[in-house]
């Protein structure tokens, strides 16, 4: 594995830490902006049949306004838990999470969330789904707000359809519109495109970047897809599992504006190699029930009848 990385660096002459002047300047300007989210020494410990488990331990990072942060890590590293704690759906057991300097104690409309599963209300039309937040918070003209945001995600024609009549990608667009109509300070996205097919996912990623470019919102995006993280993020928070701890916070050296053509750029490859090294340092031990499965292949066809 290590060899591959040095090869990547050798071939392109670029490591993931090398930033061009433009990228350096961009990170400098991001650091000038105010801090929206600050996570200090955050920990989550829960009791399981195997005893106390640290889902998260000593998490420290801060997010600046309109920054795009991806959180990546192997399964079980607590990346979803982190998003849920910031959303206020789960409680942390140590440290603190501050939004605009105020500690997070429960869910609130200043943090929007898009879930992996379809979380649209099936009994409401698309428009009423988007109107849900404004109506709950008794704010402004809910309907015109909703239509505005539906237009932004390109679904104004489907305003009166029910969620079950939409495709997976369209449903997630509605979910994004529904979260953004509340004008949250930060948009939390918990593997929102995980259930989509590759083509739709690529489309949604570009669309999300477009939205983020045009709207004053900060994004914290959970994923397990390396390409997705690099393509979207300003910085990538890499977590490791058991216990969930920050391994590294990577500043993505791929310049903006991003396009799918950059997937093959040297910066992209170097970053991906580094992520791969962090996340799969050794082959994961196989679960026991998988180990018990040992196929014993018998030849059922004629010896001469070969397919390869």
């Amino acid at each position, binding site marked *: 594995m290590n060899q591959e990385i040095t090869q990547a660096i050798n071939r392109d002459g670029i490591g993931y830490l090398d930033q061009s002047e433009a990228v350096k300047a961009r990170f400098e300007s991001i650091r000038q902006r105010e801090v929206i989210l600050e996570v200090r020494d955050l920990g989550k410990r829960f009791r399981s049949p195997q005893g106390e488990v640290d889902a998260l331990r000593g998490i420290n990072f801060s997010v600046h306004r309109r920054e795009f942060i991806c959180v990546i890590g192997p399964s079980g590293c607590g990346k979803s838990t982190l998003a849920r704690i910031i959303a*206020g*759906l789960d409680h942390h057991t140590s440290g603190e999470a501050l939004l605009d300097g105020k500690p997070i104690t429960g869910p*609130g409309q200043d943090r929007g969330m898009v*879930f992996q599963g379809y979380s649209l209300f*099936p*009994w409401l039309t698309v428009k009423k789904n988007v109107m*849900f937040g404004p109506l709950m*918070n008794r704010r402004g003209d809910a309907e015109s707000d909703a239509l505005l945001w539906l237009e932004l995600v390109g679904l104004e024609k489907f305003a009166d359809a*029910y969620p079950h009549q939409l495709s997976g990608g369209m449903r997630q667009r509605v979910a994004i519109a529904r*979260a953004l109509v509340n004008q949250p300070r930060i948009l939390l996205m918990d593997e929102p495109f995980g259930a989509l097919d590759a083509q739709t996912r690529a489309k949604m990623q570009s669309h999300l970047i477009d939205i983020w470019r045009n709207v004053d919102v900060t994004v914290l995006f959970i994923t397990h897809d390396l390409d997705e993280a690099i393509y979207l993020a300003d910085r990538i928070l890499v977590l490791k599992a058991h216990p969930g701890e920050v391994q590294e916070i990577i500043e993505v050296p791929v310049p903006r504006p991003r396009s799918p053509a950059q997937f093959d750029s040297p910066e992209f490859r170097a970053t991906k190699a580094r992520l791969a090294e962090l996340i799969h340092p050794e082959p994961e031990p196989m679960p026991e029930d998988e180990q018990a499965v040992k196929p014993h292949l018998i030849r059922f066809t004629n010896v001469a009848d070969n397919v390869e």
Partner: protein
Amino acid sequence: MISNWFGGRMDFDARKRTLFAIGSFLLPLLVWCLVSYVPFIWHPKIEVTVPGGVDYFQVGMLVDKAQFEEETAYTREQKLALPAGIPANPIYLPAPHEVAQAFYTGFTKAPEQKDAPWLHESLWHSIQIILWGFLISSLIGVPLGILAGTYASVGRLSEPFIEFFRYLPAPAFGALAVAVLGIYDGPKIAIIVIGTLFQQVLIIANTTRKLEATLIEAARTLGTRGASLVTKVVLPGILPDLYRDQRILLGWAWTYLIVAELIGTSSGITWYITQQARYQHFDTVYAAIMIIGIIGFGTDLILARLGRRLFPWDRAQDRR
């Protein structure tokens, strides 16, 4: 070929489905017709048409086949006039056309006793008992079930006892209900409430728990809290399933009706049935029992259709 018969449920088109549904009613009817109209199938009795030399035989009397043959042999031996008869079924199994006729006359002919209620009056009384019982049960059971399903504390506090109580047979409370509520409609409604309520709370709590947790979490991140979580998310979220549960529970309420109406002074359709049975009008008994079935089944069909109108987003209904 055979595999066609086991084809998935989905590829049953509407026409075929209707045909099979009608068939499911025609099959038992066919069996009933065969038993009633084909003389050599079953027919364990002989209906006497000519008494002959048997002194106790009368026209229209039903006697066992063996007894009839014995008497025939005896009269032949004694050189008396031979009795004659036709194969018949016992009085408790009337033929379909007799039941159909009784069905018709039940609504058109005044009852034999002067002050006795008509069939439709008895029925209407029974329907009122059911509706009141179901309404009272639902007023308590639906909110309690939803709360028990939404809030773990309410569920933990109420469900163990309810789980225990639902095993107590409702009719066992009959005597108690009469002592508390008198002999008229009160105890009957109480039995239906007792029979329905406890199942209702458990079923609805379960339905509520099956609601996608993500929906509640999504609503919370959108700023919903407190009571609006229940009224704006949980309730609309479970409504189609709640409606289905209520349909099933209404069916259960009907099954408690007959027992309930026997408590205190017998009333309603139960009184009608027992009266008719006392006079051995079994055709009318069958007709009255079938009316209960028709009303119950008919209501459910109407409610099912109404449900499709009310909940256009409910995808579970597409599959039926």
